[in-house]
């Protein structure tokens, strides 16, 4: 009986404040979408880190005919220089840092280049002697790139030491900033949502002040008096959270899965299933948002 009564109170409350309820839904929808977008970006960053950090290498490029760096002043790398560099990389001094070394000759470099730019007309004009030969070094700890750089970059015959991870870091830092931006917007929208929920409950409490007054007089418990207000806010926020979840799922499915994944097949993207993991978190967050703000409001506006 009491449950049925509370439910009918909630129903009438939602109907009476329909426009406010809709605005609460929309604001929580937007704010939680941004929260979720930040979450997705972080998931994506982790995904990419996991994938790429195992594969990134430090490349020690050797001098070719037209290299410009000072260590290449003597012209293309000589047999002797190459052996020295290989010897150093495989020496005892570097075993704590170097996991493995591969040599890539100019012909192999051309092969890789052709694979990578298969669709580009530039391929036909590139010849093997334009591309540098290189040592591909897998590091034990990818953070220790500086050690290799210091030791090898000024060695005769070495053109440049390049850390592929540096490139990735740039990408990650852009993504991190984007996710920070999303969180910032989410924060502002969340404040909006809290205030709006508080206002909605105030209005609702005002329009039902006769009922609550009588409920107090006849000895209704605090729960019976306040629960309808709290649940009204929570229901609206949860609907908003569901909409946000839907939007994020759509985004991952059609934007990431349908478009980005097709455009960049070699990149590991997050899947729809991972997005689904965010849904309970968003719903919980929405419910918490509404619950806390309504508790605070009720303390002031609905005397028990």
């Amino acid at each position, binding site marked *: *009986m*009491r449950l049925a009564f509370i439910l009918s109170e909630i129903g009438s409350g939602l109907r009476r404040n329909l426009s406010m309820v809709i605005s609460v839904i929309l604001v929580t929808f937007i704010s939680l979408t941004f929260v979720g977008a930040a979450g997705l970006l972080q998931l994506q960053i982790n995904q990419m880190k996991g994938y790429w950090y195992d594969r990134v290498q430090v490349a020690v490029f050797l001098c070719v005919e037209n290299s410009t760096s000072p260590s290449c002043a003597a012209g293309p790398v000589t047999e002797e220089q190459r052996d020295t560099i290989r010897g150093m990389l495989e020496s005892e001094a570097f075993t704590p840092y170097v996991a493995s070394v591969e040599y890539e000759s100019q012909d192999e470099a051309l092969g890789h280049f052709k694979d990578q730019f298969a669709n580009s007309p530039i391929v036909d004009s590139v010849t093997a002697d334009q591309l540098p030969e290189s040592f591909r070094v897998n590091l034990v700890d990818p953070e220790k790139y500086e050690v290799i750089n210091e030791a090898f970059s000024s060695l005769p015959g070495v053109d440049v030491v390049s850390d592929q991870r540096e490139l990735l870091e740039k990408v990650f830092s852009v993504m991190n900033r984007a996710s920070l931006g999303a969180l910032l917007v989410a924060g502002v929208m969340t404040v909006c949502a809290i205030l709006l929920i508080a206002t909605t409950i105030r209005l609702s409490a005002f329009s039902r002040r006769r009922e609550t007054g009588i409920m107090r*007089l*006849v*000895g209704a418990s605090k729960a019976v008096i306040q629960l309808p207000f709290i649940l009204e806010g929570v229901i609206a926020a949860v609907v908003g959270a569901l909409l946000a979840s839907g939007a994020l799922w759509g985004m991952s499915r059609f934007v990431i899965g349908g478009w980005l994944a097709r455009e960049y097949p070699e990149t590991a993207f997050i899947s729809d299933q991972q997005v689904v993991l965010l849904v309970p978190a968003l719903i919980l967050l929405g419910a918490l948002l509404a619950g806390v703000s309504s508790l605070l409001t009720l303390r002031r506006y609905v005397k028990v």
Partner: protein
Amino acid sequence: MIRFENVTKVYDATSRPALDSVSLEVDRSEFVFLVGASGSGKSTFIRLVLKEDSASRGAVYVAGQNVANIPSWRVPRLRRGIGVVFQDFRLLPNKTVFANVAFAMQVIGKSRAVIRETVPEVLKTVGLEGKNNRMPHELSGGEQQRVAIARAIVNRPGILLADEPTGNLDPTTSMGIMKVLDRINSNGTTVVMATHDDDIVNTMRKRVVELRNGAVVRDDAQGIYIGETEAVAE
């Protein structure tokens, strides 16, 4: 049933107290008129019994319990034992007579079956048989007050507090209301009625407690109402 021991209530430190060291006892099944000009402390008395406010000094006992010692989560239980009626009826305008009375039972979790059985019974007690489905605005003032009384007693409280229940009604209608209250009283409910309607007090010949400026100035077992001008002249 209700006992005030040296109760003082100060709302605002700068003005005089609303109740000033009031001691008063109302027994079970008694009918007491609380009379006095507006501002004499009648409504404060009622608020203190309901624990809507707490006494600044002294102790208020309701059904043997010091209300100051009731924790806030038990206050609803205290209020279930007390029915209240006001001058302005306070009915829910969008609910029928039946629904208004049933509301008081729904919110404390009574089952539908009990409500269906009890509400018509109580409506009969207050003389509103057959008006179950009327809306409040279709009723006369006296009938609306009867609905309010029905709502106040539907959970069978031991105490009925009435704050100027006839204040908005004409003398004939008022007498009808008094008959209802008298009947409720004779069923064992303690009734405390704040009023300044001298006709009613004089006709009923019940106990009269007069308050003036927050103090009890008279307590007659079968009293009459002494008009304000007379009282001032005394």
